[in-house]
C-alpha cells in the first residue's frame, strides 16, 4: 500500500528511474530505462517492485542486469525490499527505445 502523497510518489519514481539509468546494455551503450525495458515501478510503502522485461528471453545480460537493478536500488536510502518482476508480454521491440 502506498503511504505517500501523489507528488511525493512522482519524485520517488523519478529518483528510482535516475538510479536505474546507471544500468546499461553494454552492447548498445543504452541504459535500461531509455532502452524501454522498465514497464512499471510499483511502490508499496518503501518496498519497490520493478516490472521489467529484457530484449529477449535467454538474453546473456539477464543476470548482470538484474543484479544491477538490485544494486542501484539498494543504494537509495529510503528503499526497503526490492523485487524484480520479469515479464515477457508485451514483448520488447526496438520501437520501445526512447532517448
Amino acid at each position, binding site marked *: 500500500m502506498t503511504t505517500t502523497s501523489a507528488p511525493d510518489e512522482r519524485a520517488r519514481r523519478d529518483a528510482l528511474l535516475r538510479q536505474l539509468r546507471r544500468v546499461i546494455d553494454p552492447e*548498445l551503450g543504452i541504459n535500461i530505462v531509455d532502452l524501454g525495458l522498465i514497464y512499471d515501478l510499483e511502490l508499496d510503502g518503501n518496498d519497490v517492485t520493478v516490472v521489467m522485461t529484457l530484449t*529477449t528471453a535467454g538474453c546473456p545480460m539477464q543476470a548482470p542486469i538484474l543484479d544491477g537493478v538490485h544494486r542501484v536500488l539498494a543504494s537509495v536510502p529510503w528503499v526497503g525490499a526490492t523485487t524484480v518482476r520479469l515479464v515477457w508480454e508485451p514483448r520488447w521491440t526496438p520501437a520501445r527505445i526512447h532517448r
Partner: protein
Amino acid sequence: MTATTLPTPRLPGAPLPNLPGAVHPPPFRLPGEHFIAALLWLGVGAAGLVVVASQLAAGNIFDPRVFAVTHCITLGVITTGIFGALYQLFPVAMGRAVRSVRTAHVTFWLLQAGIALIVAGFWFSRAPLQGLGWTAVALAAGLFGVNLISRSLRTQPDPIVGRYVMAGYVAFLATLGLGSLRIGEVLGYWHVDRLAMIASHFHLAALGFATCIAVGVGSRMLPMFLVSHGFPRWPLRWAGPLGGAGLSAFVLGQFSRLPLLILAGGLVMGLATGLYLVLAAGYFRRRLRRALDPGLAHVAVAHVALGVAVVTGALMLLAPTGFAPSRWAAYGLLVLLGWLVPLIVGVQYKILPFLTWLHLFGQKMGEGPLPVVADLTRPSWGWASLACLVTGVLVIVPAVAVGSAAAVTAGAAAFALGVALVLAQAGRVLSLRYGR
C-alpha cells in the same frame, strides 16, 4: 502476462533460479573454444590459400591441397564457427539452452580431431585419414544434433527460426553423406559422378547448411544488433522452403544428369537467396543504430558478396560453358571468402568481446560507470582487417577466373593480412579475458 518474479535479496553473481523464461547462457569456455579454434583454422586456411594460389590460378580444382585448404575453411572456420555461435545464440534466438555442456566439449574435440584428420588426409593424399576424420566429424555432428539441434523442434517464441536451424542441420548431414560417397570412391568401394558430387556437396554445405542457419538465427540476432524494426518479414517465410526445394532439385538434377532440373533448381536457389537478401536489406535499412561497427560492417559486406554470388551463379547457369574449372573455382571462392568467412568474422567480432565484457564487468553492473563492449576492441584494426579481406576477395576471384597466378597470390596475401589482423584483434580481446 508471463512473469518471472525474482525476490530480493539475490547475491550478485549467484546463479539465476530455475524459473520460467530464465534461459541460462553457456559458460564462456564453450563458445570461446569454438571461436578460438575457428580463428586458428582461419589462419591455417589463409596461409594455405597463398600456398595453393598457383593451383587455383591453373584451375586445378581437383588438386588435393586445394581440397585441404577448402576444408580448412568450410569445416575449420565455418562449421566450427557456426557450432560455437549456435551454443551462444541458441538460447537467445530460441529460448532453449544446450542439454549438456560436457557433451558439447566432447563434441568440440571430436570435431576438431575430425577436421585435422580430413585436412591432413587431403594434403597428404591419404584416404584412410580422410575416412577416420569423416567418422569423427559424423560423430560430432550426431552429438551436436542430440545435444542442441533437437531442442529447436519446439522453439518459442519464433518457431520459424527452429525450422531454419533444423533444415541447416539436415543439409549438414547430407553434406557429410556425400563426403562419405567420395571417400568410398577413393578407397575403391564404388564410383560417383565427381562433378555432380562436388557441385552438390558444395551447395549443400554453403547454402543448405551455413546460409540456412545464418538466415534463421540471423533473423533474431541481426535486428537485435542493428536495433532494427519495422522491416517486412514475409521473405523469411518463403526463402527457406524455396531454397530447400531449389537445392533438392539441383542435387537431384546433378546426379540424374538432367540439365533442366539443374537449371530450375539453381534458379530457384538464387530466387530464395535473393528473397533473403531483401530481408537482410530491410534489417540494415530500418536500423536505429545508424553507424555500423566493424563487426556489423563485416556482416554487411558479406551480404553484398552473397548478392554478387547469386548473380554470378545465375549467369553461369544461364550461359553454361561446359566444364569450366576456373569459373567454378572463382564462384566457390566468392561464396566462401566473400560471404561466409566475413560473416563468421563479423559474428566473432560481436560475440568474443561481449563474452569478455561479461566476464570482466558482468558482476559490477550498477557500481559505477562501466566501459561498453566496443571499448574492448580496436576499431581501427577491425576496419583494416575488413579492407584487407575485401581487397583480397576483389583480387582473388577475378584472378582465378582469368588464371593469373601472380594476382591470385597477391590477393591471397592481402586476404592473409586481413586474417592476421582478425587474429590480432581476437588475441587482444582474449588477453583481456585471460590476462586478469
